[in-house]
């Protein structure tokens, strides 16, 4: 899975701490999410997408999905 959280976060000038505050997790969780080392729950993915004002699949891109787009 790939994530575009960092890109969308920069668009709204949000720090990791501010995003963490808005979605109710610790900053470390956002760090691991951006590194692609943490698999979020649907609730957290939805909350992040709402804060970043995009769709969930715009922020979180699964490998099989990106392969399909390339094909």
């Amino acid at each position, binding site marked *: *899975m790939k994530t575009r959280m960092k890109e969308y976060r920069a668009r709204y000038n949000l720090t990791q701490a501010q995003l963490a505050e808005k979605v*109710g*997790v*610790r*900053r470390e969780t956002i760090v*691991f999410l951006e590194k692609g080392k*943490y698999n979020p729950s649907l609730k957290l993915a939805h909350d992040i997408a*709402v804060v970043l004002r995009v769709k969930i699949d715009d922020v979180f891109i699964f490998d099989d999905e990106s392969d399909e787009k390339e094909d």
Partner: protein
Amino acid sequence: MKTKSTDKIDKQYLASKALMWIGSAILLVCAVYMIIWKTFNDIIAIEVLIGAMVIIISFFSYIGMEKPADERLIKVGTMSATWSWYITLMFMCFLLFSGFYTPRQFQPAELFGLVIFVMVSTMIVLNTYFNRKGDVEETFHL
């Protein structure tokens, strides 16, 4: 979507983490004492009780039984507790078999110390490992 306070989560996390370390340290010291001296007295009994109470209360606080909670900590904490329990069960089976096939006789206090030591140490190690790794799953290929 409600905005929650990460400050509260952070404070709760740091306090419960510190308490978990204190509880673990008390239990490990008692376990080592029981393994080495193979005895069990009133002071050790009270220390084990205090250590167990501290670690149980702080663990539930750590994984977020008190809201708000961080979902990653819940995953990491519950998975490390599950694995720790499983490893301890396997270890106890190993001790049972070793008791049948070797002349070595374990004292009750020594056995109790070994079980406490394995359970607490595996939980600390696994919790630290999963916390540094980020997740309990292997799903990412960046």
